């Protein structure tokens, strides 16, 4: 009898614990931003908000009011703390690489071995030549224009850093060819890139998967001190 009652007691308290989790209450917290716009901050934290939560913006005081379960509110506070800061400076390492198919491929330069091994397994390129490389840096929101060896120009704007995905947006990234004898730039591609910090991204462009030639833009971003 006592044993049965003990089991019943445990089941009852187990049920109480389950119910407590299910009925986890939401809380509200306001965040007044100093450096960033509250409406943009709302977009940054939106992926964190659960089905129980909500975000409201008070433009007059540049404040976000977030309602959600306490665990998420803590994470929102952490992300907003990182986001609401003066514009950060980032350095961008940009390489321009020509990938092609050759009957007699030249040895691959050491810093292109990784790209050659990864890309060679998917496409039929076997020759990789570096056209140009340079490192530039700038603060969030600033435009960047760089002329690369081989007659290419890259233009983009350093967008906002997203602390949630730890990526920097390169807005309106345009790669153009500069005519040798003057004249208008020949725009090759225009895109917007989310560059995860510390990750090397090789953006290759070619006419079709069967092409024997591709232009590779190899990018790597880091936050400057």
């Amino acid at each position, binding site marked *: 009898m006592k044993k049965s009652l003990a089991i019943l007691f445990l089941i009852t308290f187990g049920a109480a614990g*389950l119910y407590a*989790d299910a009925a986890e209450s939401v809380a509200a917290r306001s965040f007044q931003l100093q450096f960033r716009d509250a409406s943009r901050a709302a977009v940054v934290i939106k*992926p964190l908000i659960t089905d129980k939560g909500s975000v409201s913006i008070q433009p007059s005081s540049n404040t976000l009011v977030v309602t959600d379960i306490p665990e998420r509110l803590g994470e929102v506070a952490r992300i907003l703390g990182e986001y609401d800061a003066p514009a950060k400076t980032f350095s961008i390492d940009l390489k321009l690489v020509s990938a092609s198919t050759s009957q007699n491929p030249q040895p691959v330069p050491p810093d292109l071995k*990784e790209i050659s091994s990864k890309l060679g397994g998917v496409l039929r390129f076997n020759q990789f030549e570096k056209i140009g490389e340079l490192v530039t840096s700038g603060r969030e929101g600033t435009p960047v224009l760089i002329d690369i060896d081989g007659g290419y120009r890259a233009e983009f704007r350093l967008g906002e850093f997203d602390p949630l995905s730890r990526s920097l947006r390169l807005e309106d990234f345009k790669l153009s060819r500069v005519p040798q004898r003057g004249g208008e730039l020949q725009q090759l*591609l225009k*895109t917007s*890139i*989310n*560059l995860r910090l510390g990750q090397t991204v090789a953006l290759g462009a070619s006419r079709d998967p069967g092409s024997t030639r591709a232009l590779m833009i190899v990018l790597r971003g880091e936050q400057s001190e």
Partner: protein
Amino acid sequence: MKCADFIENVRAGVDDAQTRDHLRGCEACMAAGLELDSDLLFRVLGGGEILPPEGVDAFTHGVMQQIHLRESERELKAAPKRILFALRWSAAAALVLGVGSFALWQGMDPVVQPVSPSAPAAIVASMDRPTIESYDSADATIVELAAETTSDFLIVMVFDESLPADL
């Protein structure tokens, strides 16, 4: 009868229907009568006999029901709590069934899953933005070769017929 007669009635404590009717219509007599009897106003306003809307019998029946109910409550409070052994086990079985159903229901509903302290890392990992957010050509095909880890090398190929052949 004159006003003076009605006032005399009030003074003498006569509370007949004729006097009340007069006092309702005559402000001077009412004012004089109130000086003699301060409760006069309320008696005059009372009008006819008040009857409950459902009738006297229904009202009485309702009152008696309330009395019986109170008596029953008192008896129950005074009685010793005798719950049979079988009844206890029935209650326990019902509780176990309830707990089991609730646990099953909770397992089926992802919304109420508790968030563990280690959740933020998983959240961040699943919130990657696409590497190529936009590309200015409707005919392009973008192929992202997945990185093995977040710090790994990522290759994104853009195949676009509008690109020049001599890239």
